[in-house]
Each structure stands twice: as C-alpha cells, then as structure tokens.
C-alpha cells in the first residue's frame, strides 16, 4: 500500500498536512501527535519582522465552525529560524513554511531568508488572509496581482512555492491558472471565507476586527467544490483544505482532485485529529482495496 505523494519533487510519506495557523510550528501539538507520522507540518505564517496581530476578541464560535481574526501575529523570520525550525529538526517530517507580508518586498525578504534553510522543504505563500488590512488579501483576489507576486517570488526562491488561494473570489479557476502561469509549483486552498458574527445582546461585533475568517466543517462543501474546480483548471498539484474533520473528509478532497490535504480548525476540536486522519486513510485504503493513494485522486464521476 502506497500513501506517499509527491509535490514539486518533494516526497511526503502521506498526504496529511497541518493547515497553517492551526498547529503552531508543531510544538503545541507534539503532546498529542507524533509529528513524524504526518506528511508535513505547515507552520503558522511568518513575516520579515514580528507582527502583533489584531486586538481581542480574535476568535468566535459559529455553527459548525469558527471565525478568526488573529491578524497573523508572528515572531518574525529570525526567531522562527532559531526556535521553530530548530525545534523541527528533531523530527523528520517534511516542513512547509507559510509566509505572509504586507508588501511584495516583505514576502521576498522572508522567501530569501528561508531559501537556504535546509529544514525547509517548501514555502506556502499566504496571499489570502482576510484579517490584515494591509493588502495581503488583495494579492489573492486579483489575478494580475497574484500573477505578479507569484512570479517575483519564484525568481528569488530556491524552494518550491505553493500559492495559497483565497475562496473570496468570483472564479477560483482563474486564480489557480494565474498562479500556475506565473510559475507556482503548487496551489493550496481554501483559506478562510470572510464572515461576521454579531452579539445581538451587546449589539457588538463578536470580533474586535469586525470580520473574521470562517473555517471548520461549515465550509467543507465550498472547499471541495473549489478544489475540484482548481484542480481541473491547472496541471500543478493542489493541496486541499477546509473543514476536514475525519479521514472520510480527507478522501473526499483527494477524490475532488487534491494531491495532499490539510487539517485546520478541527485540530482545536480534537488535538489528535491529524494522526487519526493518517490512520483513517490507511484503513479506507485497506477496506476498499486502494493500493496507491495517487490512484483515487480526482476519480469522482
């Protein structure tokens, strides 16, 4: 039975990754899951300098999911390299570093700094965070801007690049094509869908930032549809995510066309979840005679 998948020349032991921002750098979940069991750890977004993030409340629960407006708080690339990457050296799982920025230059700086780090296998470029005012999401909502930033990053990066797409667009296929045309090695989707919650008793927004990103099982049908559309629009691999709560959900994304999948908000519901998804995929393969996980990618009729 083969669960290995390959993206841009990097081989992953299995298709199960962590969704950026929901798993720290793995440290906080190492109490619960053997990180070596995962296909990859995808880290929280890291910028060129530390980011403070948004005021609290930053999270709110909604039906079948949650809203977050963390605002990409992070310690900056220096601390990240010295502490988080160092920590990850204890494991031999693949490492994908999620990169954020406010300007193209910010992104380029982080990409360059990480280009020579051996522990980094790939970079995931977050151009789709709905929770920071300074432009980031604009790169992910206009195909020209996405093309531009992708090609500029590709020029400087020595690591393969995954462009993380926003679902807050009219046509995900067009965005996927723009990323591919600009040289992206892979795309990942979906980031959160912009949402809002109002406390009708306090007459206030539930989040200090007013809007936040919706994630969790509530968004899964939208995510599966977008993974399906994107994977049919491009020839580069797609990493699928959005509401994965069990192995069945992960397989649904793979059948929709994803080469790998990421578990996000549901880690908060069940800190053991990533490991269970790995096991559950193997169980499905055994029970339904799937010899190679790559053989069921996109097979839905």
């Amino acid at each position, binding site marked *: 039975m083969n669960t290995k998948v390959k993206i841009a020349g990097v081989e992953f032991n299995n298709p199960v990754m962590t969704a950026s*921002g*929901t*798993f*720290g750098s793995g440290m*906080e*979940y190492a*109490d*619960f899951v053997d990180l070596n069991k995962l296909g990859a750890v995808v880290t*929280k977004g890291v910028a060129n300098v*530390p*980011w*403070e*993030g948004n005021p*609290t*409340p*930053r*999270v*709110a*629960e909604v*039906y*079948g*999911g*949650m809203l*977050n407006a*963390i605002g990409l*708080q*992070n*310690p*900056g690339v220096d*601390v990240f390299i010295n502490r988080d990457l160092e920590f990850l050296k204890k494991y031999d799982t693949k490492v994908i570093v999620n990169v954020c920025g406010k300007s193209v230059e910010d992104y380029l700086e982080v990409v360059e700094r990480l280009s020579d780090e051996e522990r980094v296998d790939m970079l995931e470029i977050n151009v789709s965070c709905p929770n920071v005012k300074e432009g980031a999401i604009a790169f992910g909502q206009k195909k020209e801007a996405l093309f531009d930033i992708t090609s500029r990053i590709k020029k400087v990066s020595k690591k393969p690049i995954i462009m993380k797409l926003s679902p807050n667009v009219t046509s995900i296929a067009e965005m996927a094509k723009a990323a591919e045309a600009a040289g992206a090695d892979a795309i990942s989707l979906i980031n959160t869908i912009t949402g809002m919650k109002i406390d009708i008793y306090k007459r206030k927004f539930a989040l200090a930032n007013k809007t936040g990103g919706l994630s*969790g*099982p509530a968004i899964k049908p939208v995510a599966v549809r977008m993974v399906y559309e994107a994977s049919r629009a491009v020839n580069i691999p797609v990493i699928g995510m959005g509401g994965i709560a069990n192995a069945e959900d992960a397989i649904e994304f793979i059948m929709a066309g994803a080469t790998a999948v990421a578990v996000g*908000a*549901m*880690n*908060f*519901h*069940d*800190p*053991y979840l990533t490991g269970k998804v790995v096991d559950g995929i193997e169980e499905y393969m055994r029970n339904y005679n799937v010899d190679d996980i790559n053989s069921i990618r996109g097979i839905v009729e």
Partner: protein
Amino acid sequence: MTNKMKKEAKVLSQKLLADGIFDLWLETEIAKDTCPGQFVGVYTVNKAALLPRPISVCEVNKEKTAIRLVYRVVGTGTAEFALYQPGDYMMILGPLGNGFPLEKAEGKKVVLMGGGIGVPPLLETVKRLGEGTNKKALEVMTVMGYRNSETFLSDEFEKYSRLYIASDDGSVGTKGNVIDALKEKKIDCDVIFACGPMPMLRGIKAYAQENGIKAYLSLEERMACGVGACLGCICKTKKVDDHSHVKNARICTDGPVFDADDLDM
C-alpha cells in the same frame, strides 16, 4: 510541562449550587497532574458547537482521580453541561494553563480574591496553601465577592482560611466589591491571588501597586485551541512575550495567571 490529554471523563455527581451555578465532579486521569488555577476545555455533544469551553478546576481529589468544576450557565455549552447526570461521560482536554504560583506565597500573608464565577478556581488554591507542604503560607485570607446572598462555596473557603465576603447588593458582608471589603476590613497582606471580571482585576492591580503588594491575576479571553497554537487568547504584556516577541502573552498557556506587574491592562 504538564501532560495534556483529551479524554472521556465520567460524571460522578452534579448539583445546583446557586441560581444558575452548577457543581460537577468528574472522574478523570487529568486529575493526576492538575494544579490549582489550571483549567480544562470541556467539549459539547452538540455538533454545532465545536470549540472546547474553558472551565477552571475548582478542586482536585487525587484519591478519586477526580476534579470538580463549578460553572455558571450562560450559553449553549454550559446549558448542555448542566444536563449531565452521574454515569454520563463528557470529553475534556487538560490540564491547561499554568495555575497560581503557590511558591510565591511561601511564608507570606496571602489573600485570595474571587469575584462571581472567579471564586471557584481559588478553592483548590486555598486548600494547597493551607496544606502542610513546604510551600505553606504564613497566613491565608480569602475575600469573595458575590452578586447577592447566594454565596456559593463560601462555607468551604471558611474551612481553609479567614473569610471575608462582599456582595453587590449588601445582603452579606461588605456592600460592594472585593476591593471595598479589603479596604473596609483593612486586610494586610504581601501577596494577592485573584480571579474575576476584568474591572475587578484592574482594581486589584492598582490597589496592589499602591500598597506594595504582589498580585497574581487569572485572566479570561475567548479561546479556540486552549493549547497555545491558535494565538486567539492573547493579553497585552509590558515586556516582549516569549512566543511571538510582540508583548502578547497567550492566556491559555502563558497564563491564565499572570504577575500583575507584567500585564498592560
């Protein structure tokens, strides 16, 4: 670092303690490692509500490997918890957070101050401070603030400490809040451990500063993961924090208890 786990816990007993406030004992392995001031994340069965509810550990019974939770029904999750009966199972995640720094009270006059639903986490704290450990405090006093005469848990605090009560409506003890009681009773102390609503904690911080008292405050914030990963539950600190280096400590892991001097409230 404590050994965190998510496990089924068995309901041993549940009773109504005061209007809308429930008293729940759970048998759980988590009890083994739990320190006073720590909390657990309690999950609902309701699949619309997926995040764990942070609830402080009120008391620990090591022999029965059980913890006690005292909580107020305020929404979906707590309303569901109130329905559980002995023999039922609940999913909990813990132990979470740091707990009160008992060692700071060693040989000192310590006052525990709790307001409303901030009262429960101080019970295990007062018990441990009073116990014949090498961390024994010189003197342990408690000041508990309630809305009215429903002074839940006060009889238990009385067993382990000199107890003062404040109530919003003046029906018991000092009329007003816990700081009013502290002033009225001219309580002299070196260290304060406190838990309660933000305005009360701000008041305690100011009072402590003015009077050269060390204060340790237990904070609340909306949480998602409970384990330090999501960065949802931060509070502003004076110095750069260890995690993100941006003066944002995570209440769920760096706290919930903080040295008042470190907080930018």
